[in-house]
């Protein structure tokens, strides 16, 4: 009743700026692009302000079993973005210690300090409005190369990554091939 709920215009303005930056200067190693339609807005009926209707696409980093793959993911932004972080989800089969089986990415930058679903180290990078979509994407790229099995989201993946690295690589490579329709 006291809360105007906000129109989300700050969030929208910020996202448009970030989007422009990302299209003009995509960081190296990321094919962050948008496939499909324009940004769409879902208004305050739900708590989402904006979702990228087309997926962000990752190319798997060289030297990892993700190499060569094209991994679609979505980012969904809360109405009070960038005060709160977005949620990132791979929309393809994705086997990784820090990604839940439903595709939701669980790394420290996607959580505000004090919000500790997986007991991150206190020094790890957290969400605050100084972060951005670009920084999230860079963190995800480094997550692909270096999983953090201390704060795992997929325990099976953690175990296999830790003790049966070849098997882990095989599973990931199989997913990678799947993303290419092979």
């Amino acid at each position, binding site marked *: *009743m*006291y*809360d*105007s*709920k*906000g*129109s*989300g*215009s*700050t969030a929208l*303005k*910020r996202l448009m*700026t*970030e989007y422009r*930056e990302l299209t003009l200067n995509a960081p190296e190693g990321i094919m962050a692009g948008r496939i499909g339609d324009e940004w769409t807005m879902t208004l305050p009926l*739900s*708590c*989402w302000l904006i979702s990228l209707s087309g997926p962000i696409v990752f190319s798997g980093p060289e030297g990892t079993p993700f190499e060569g793959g094209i991994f679609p993911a979505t980012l*969904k932004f*809360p*109405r*009070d973005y*960038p*005060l*709160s972080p977005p*949620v990132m*989800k791979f929309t393809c089969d994705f086997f990784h210690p820090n990604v*839940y*089986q*439903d595709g*939701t990415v669980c790394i420290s930058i996607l959580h*505000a*300090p*004090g919000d500790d679903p997986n007991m991150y180290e*206190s*020094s790890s*990078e*957290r*969400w*605050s*409005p*100084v972060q*951005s979509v670009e920084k999230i994407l860079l963190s995800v790229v480094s997550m692909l190369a270096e999983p953090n099995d201390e704060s*795992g*989201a*997929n*325990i*099976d993946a953690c175990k296999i990554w830790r003790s049966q690295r070849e098997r882990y690589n095989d599973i990931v490579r199989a997913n990678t091939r799947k993303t290419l329709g092979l």
Partner: protein
Amino acid sequence: MTSQEQNEWQPELTDEQILAFEQKIKDEEAEKIPLVCQKESIESLEKEFQDNKPFLEKVQKLKETNDELRKCRGDGNCFFRAFAFAWFESLMRNPQIFEAGLEKLKSTTELLLSGGFQELAFEDFYDVTLNQLEQIPDSDPDLLLVNFQTEEISNSIVMHLRFVTSAYLKIHSAEYEPFLIVESISIDQFCAQEVEAFGRESDHLQITALTKALDVPVEVLYLDGSSGDHVAVHEFWPDEASKGSRKALQLIYRPGHYDILYRK
């Protein structure tokens, strides 16, 4: 792994549901108390602490010098929000200090850039804050309150002050790092975790930095469980020399929360 074990590690709610749930909690909290409230008599504190003798005695003592307070929502941002509102209100009441306040706010963009902040991160919050401050001469107290109760405006101002505080601490890290010895973290880590993140509570370090960065003196009156009716006053003066030549904003603190206090 059994299916039961697996369930423990799978999110039981979708991300949409989790965000919706968090939004619901925020909305419920919002219905209890606005971000910034109307002024109320200090007697409301007497009622609040009627069963708590040490606090009650102090509130009764406080009545000799102060008659009103203005509550802010306890969402972890109360120090910044209380400070911002009290500051804006003081600029509205004293037109002779308005220009200096405006100049100080405008100088913060330089401070943020020197503190290593990207323009992308702060420009939107700064624009809202500047716009609100510029309106002060043509505004009135009711409108000021309405704006501070509007989430988007109010939170942008809070966020700008958080960044200003953080930039000031980073630039003066040599002075302030020694205070973090116990936590054994660097100023940069402290700022990332405690200052730049929305909703994290504030303590001495943040207050010291913000009052210096904006040249706004603050007195914090502490209510605590100590015996006797003495209310400890912590003074934050940007420079000792200016003490006495102007009035400090007054905030009242009880463990975990700041509100705005008004002198008689």
